[in-house]
Every structure is written in C-alpha cells, then in structure tokens.
C-alpha cells in the first residue's frame, strides 16, 4: 500500500516537473528565439520575420548602429509558408512578429483582416520621397500606407547569348519577334525551346497580362467591401491566346515553375530565354548544375507595341508592421530604417542580389554602373532594369489574391497543358468564378 502511494506521488511529481518545462512564453518567445545576436540588451526589441538571403548581415548592421532599438530576426519560411503562419497568428490573436516581410501582392489580403498597422500615422510620409511612384502605389491604399517598400521585381529578358548565336537568332524586342525566334529555334532542330510559360506563374502570368493593358482588380482599403474584377478583358485574352498558340505548336514548354525539374532546365540550356524579374539573376546563380559554357545577357522585355513600351513588375517585397506589435513606434522605425541606409543596400545588392526600390541607391552611379560577373560584366541595371523600374506605375491586387492565383492556375493549366479549353473561355470562366467568390465573401462588385 505504502509503495503504491509512493509511486503515485512520484508520478505526480515527475508530471509536474515535466509540465513546468513548458514555460510560459507570452512576452519572451521573441527574445528567446532570435537567429541573430542582440548587441544592446537593454534596448527595445522588435521581432522581424524575413526570408531575404544574407539578411543576417543587414540585421547586424542595424543592431550595431541603433542603440534604442534592436532587431530580433527569424526566418519563418519563404512566401506562402510564412503567410500561412502569419494567417494563423492573426486568427489566434497572438504569435505574429512586430515587423513582417510581405510581398506587395498579399498586402490587401492582410490589411483587410486588420492585421497591418497604417504607417501614415507613424511617419511614413517622411520616407515617401525615397521611393518610386510605382513602388509607393503598391504599398498604399488611398491615404493609408500599409508597408515600406524594400525590393522590386522589374521585368526584363535574360537570354543565353551562346544558344541564340549558335542558331543565328537575334534577341527579340517584340512579341512577334519572340514567336518568330521560337519557330526558328525549333526548325533548326535545337534540343531545347526558346522559353517556358509556367501554368503556376501566378504574379508572372498577371504581369504578362498587365503588359497588355489588363487591370484585373480595382480595390481600395477606404471602401473595403467594394471590389472591381475584370480578368477577362481583351488584353488578357490576347496574351493567353498568344501563349496558347506557342505551346500548342511546341515552341515553348509549359513546365511548372520552381520545381527541381524547372530549376535544372533553367540552367542547362533547355530554355534559351528566361523572362525574369530583377531578382532572377540571384535565383539563377543559386541553382546547381549550370552549363559551364553558358553566357547570359540581359535585355528589355519584349513589347507588344515597340513604339509604346509598357514596363511591368513581378514580385518584390515590403516590410509591414503588424497590429500585434507591442511597440508600434519602434516597429515602424525598424520597417523604415532597416533597408534605409547605403550600407544595408550594399549588402542587399552584392550578397542577396536584390533590386532596391530605395531611391538614394537606385539612382546612384554605383548601382547604375554595377557590372555583374554572371552576365560577363554587363551593366544590367543601366541596360535593362532601371528603365523597367522607372516605367512601372504600380498595380492593384485583390484581397483574396491567393484564391485568385489558384483559380488562374487551374484555368491556365486547362488551356496550355490539358488543351481542354480555349483562352477566351478560360478567362471568362475565371471571371465568373472570382465574381462568385467575391459575392460569397460579402464584397459588392463594381
């Protein structure tokens, strides 16, 4: 009997000790799990989620130069992985960082859930002049500013000079020339194709449509329940029909982007052209299995009308302050200043291959004349990306952009992969699906 009581007490004690191992974490979790080193222990700590490569150096730069605020950084995943964690934290009311890296396309999805702080009350106007018009428009909605721009993705065309020279093809400047070049490459019996049109292109596909005048969404946070949807305009239909035609003739591939197969094909010469954003070179350089004899060059994106060039953007990110931030002033300071110095941007450009939207660096001679060894010393910013960034006027995304992209992917897959629909029907179906979804979610269609 005694031994049984002893055993029972012992078990209870072990259980209690085990449970205290789960320490309470409602204030200390951020500090407990910084990836970087905190320089000044007494200062206010601001937790940051970001996935930039080489970001730790930028954080150290900030921590070493600021006495009153320190950054505590963790990489919470890339893109959607981070967004699902953020979304769950918003729903549960805790667990979100103070400052979070968000791509511009998901800003309205989070601002509509009151997850982001309006930075116009925290001095956003002070830094507005440091950013291009297009970049600022992407982070604003009416008078509210929901994030500070960091890097952008102005689009250009990266091509394999060695492959195009081998088959006597000049780098195309219009989409008509592009189609002709694709045909010429195939007729010459090349093992690869000219380019790839990924069905899961998401923002890439949207940018291609935008280049032909598509304005898919009209949305303003000032009237959060109104939305205008126009995804089946003639411009988009023409673009999709163009790619449908090339795909059906086998002149371009329709491989899904960002898979292991796709990464290999990018660097081994299967695709002679990579329609890329300014972060594309950094992405290429990070891939294994590159062709040793590859000579990459950058050129402006092909245009529909050579006389009236339209510049578009794919991706790019911002820093937003979350509504769960304890010290919003400090968080806003971090968002504005972390990529607000030359030193930080030197690291961002040289180590992370980011394209800055911060004008003092963007417009500097250093950036303009920068020679990229990957492109054989070509000054790709001067030649391609600076004009692309300057010409970019901004873009409006929907507050349910993830859903819109998934539906877009299904429709594009049906057109170019399964060949079960033509492009006009697919976009009409997409319009109907999005309108139905918006109405179900309580939006009023404009």
């Amino acid at each position, binding site marked *: 009997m005694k031994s049984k009581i002893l055993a029972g007490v012992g078990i209870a004690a072990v259980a209690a000790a085990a449970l205290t191992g789960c320490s309470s974490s409602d204030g200390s979790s951020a500090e407990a799990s910084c990836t970087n080193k905190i320089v000044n222990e007494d200062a206010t700590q601001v937790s940051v989620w970001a996935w930039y490569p080489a970001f730790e150096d930028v954080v150290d730069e900030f921590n070493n130069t600021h006495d009153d605020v320190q950054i505590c950084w963790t990489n919470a995943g890339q893109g959607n992985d981070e967004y699902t964690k953020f*979304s769950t934290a918003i729903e549960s009311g805790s667990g979100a960082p103070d400052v979070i890296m968000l791509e511009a396309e998901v800003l309205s999805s989070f601002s509509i*859930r009151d997850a982001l702080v309006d930075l116009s009350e925290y001095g956003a106007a002070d830094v507005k002049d440091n950013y291009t018009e297009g970049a600022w428009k992407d982070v604003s909605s009416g008078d509210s500013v929901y994030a500070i721009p960091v890097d952008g993705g102005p689009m250009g065309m990266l091509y394999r000079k060695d492959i195009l020279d081998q088959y006597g093809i000049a780098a195309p400047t219009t989409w008509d020339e592009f189609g002709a070049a694709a045909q010429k490459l195939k007729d010459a019996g090349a093992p690869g194709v000219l380019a790839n049109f990924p069905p899961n292109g998401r923002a890439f596909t949207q940018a291609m449509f935008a280049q032909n005048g598509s304005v898919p969404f009209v949305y303003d946070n000032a009237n959060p329940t109104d939305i205008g949807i126009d995804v089946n305009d003639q411009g988009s239909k023409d673009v999709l029909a163009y790619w449908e035609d090339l795909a059906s003739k086998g002149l371009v591939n329709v491989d899904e982007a960002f898979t292991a197969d796709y990464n290999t094909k990018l660097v081994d010469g299967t695709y002679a052209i990579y329609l890329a954003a300014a972060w594309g070179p950094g992405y290429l350089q990070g891939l294994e299995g590159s062709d040793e004899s590859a000579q990459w060059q950058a050129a402006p994106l092909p245009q529909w009308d050579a006389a009236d060039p339209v510049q578009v953007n794919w991706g790019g990110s911002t820093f937003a302050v979350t509504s769960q931030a304890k010290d919003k002033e400090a968080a806003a300071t971090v968002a504005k200043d972390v990529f607000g110095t030359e030193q930080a941007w030197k690291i961002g450009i040289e180590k992370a291959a980011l394209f800055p939207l911060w004008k003092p660096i963007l417009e500097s001679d250093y950036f303009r004349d920068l020679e990229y060894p990957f492109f054989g010393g070509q000054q790709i910013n001067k030649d391609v990306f600076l004009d692309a960034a300057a010409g970019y006027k901004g873009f409006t995304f929907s507050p349910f952009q993830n859903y819109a992209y998934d539906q877009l992917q299904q429709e594009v897959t049906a057109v170019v992969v399964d060949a079960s629909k033509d492009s006009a029907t697919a976009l009409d179906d997409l319009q109907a699906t999005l309108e139905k979804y918006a109405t179900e979610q*309580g939006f009023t269609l404009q």
Partner: protein
Amino acid sequence: MTTHAVAAPPARTGRHRSGIERRQRVGWLFVAPFLVIFAAFLIFPLIYAFGMSLFSSTLATGTKFVGLDNYLKAFTDPLFLGGLGRVALYALVMIPAQLVVALVAALLLDNLATWLSKASRLLIFAPYAIPVVIGALMWSFLYSPRFGPAGTIFELFGLDAPNFLSSGTIFFSLVNVVTWQWSGYYMIVIYAALRSIDPAIYEAARIDGANGWQIATRIKVPMISSSMIMVITFALIGTLQFFTEPTVLRSVASGALPADYTPNMYAFALAFSYSQFNYASTIAFSLAIVVFIGSFGFLFLTRKQNGLK
C-alpha cells in the same frame, strides 16, 4: 479482475471497500497526465473547432452566427463533393490493391519457414517504417521526368516514358505510392492473425484431401476475416482522409493536383491559403461525419465476420 475480491471475507467490508476506492484513485492518478493532454489537445480543440464551424466569417463583413448553415453549404459545395467522390474512388481502387498484396504476401510467408520468409517480411514492412512525407518526397523524385529512373528504363525498350505527374496518370501514381507504403503494415497484421490459427486444422484438412489453394481460400481466409475487416476499416478511414501524399506531390505537380483535390486538402487550403477558418472547420467536421458513416456502415454490413459483438 477479481483476484483481490476472492480473498476478502465479508466481515471486513468497510476497510475493503475503501481499499478498492483507494486503488481506483491511484489508477486515476496514473491516467491523469494522459487525460490532461488528451483533453487539452484533442477534446478542447474539437469543441472549439465545432464552435467555429457554427459561425461564418467573410473577408468583407466579419463574423456572425449561422448555426448549421455552413454544413448545408458544405454538403452542396461542388468542390467538397467532388473531393469526396475522388477519395471514394481511391478507396475502391486502393483498398483492394493493398489488401490483395498484403494477403498474398502473408499467405505465402505463412507457408514458408525459411530465412527467406523472415527477410521478406522485413523488406515488405520496411516502407511502412519510412515517414509518409519522406516516402512521398522520394516518389516525387522517382516520378520526375528528369530525375527519375523511368526515362532510362523505358529507353531500354525503345519507348517514351509516360509522364507520371499529368492529370491523367496522377491517380495511379498516387495509388502506387500508398500501396507501396501501407501494404507491409497490413501484411504484418494479417500474418499475425494467420500465425494464431492452430496448425492442427491444416492437418485435418490435408487428411480430408484439401490442397494448398483450398486450404488458403477455404480455411485461412475465413478464419482471419475479422483481422481483414479491421485492416479494411483502417484503410477506409485513412483513404477517406487522404492528405499527405497529394500535398507533398503538389510541389511537383500543382497542375494535376489542385488545392481542393481531397476534402482534407480543401479544408487545409481554406484555412491556411484563403483564411476561411470557419468554413474549413465545417469541411473538416463534414468529412468526419462521412468517415463515421462510412466506417460504421462498413462494420455494420460485415457484422457477422468482423468479430465485434
């Protein structure tokens, strides 16, 4: 358990009853840690999720109570019903496939007594020891047109390798992955059941003139029918909740596998991609209802063979 009651004479009832109560209290003390965790991580979340499923939250207009309207919406949602149809089709194909492989393997191994049978048992069971996600990731590389062996193998015969990840072939690709992973587990269960049959029955059958095949089909299989029913029930529940393999393969085949391919994937996408947590809870519970009906229905239909009273 009556070992202690037998020894206690009636005259000492008072002390004896408190002895039983004390043992019961100590028993509860032992179970308490498990119960706490069970309640915290299973019961409360279920209740909370059910509560969430009674509300509706739209992006534009916020949360309001709608009672069981969400369930009506779920059971008329073409994506949910489509997903249900798909997993039902998977169940119809995958369960017999796994069962046949497991049964044949178990019967064969039951007949052999050599070291080969021990090695084979281990090899067939090995895929089950691999975590499901790792197994699916491995298969995603095996199926890849560039990295997989299919290209090389088909070239030997002068043929073009089929694309295992296109919409037409993804069904069989997934069936293959699941069968590879789970047949070993079911084989072990059936093998254990076979081992528990008294060999004297086989001798009696042989004396009566039965050959090996007849012993297998007329004696062994009926005698292990309750194990087989259990195996089928587990497989049914697992298949209706099909999630891991399609989600892992989505990273290489997102065209063939949309986000709502199975009801579980649909619930996941609703919650974490589209931020519709309430409706996601509804879908999850609706799926649970279907799984309940499916598994209890199956157990009821096989009540003669399944060995449950």
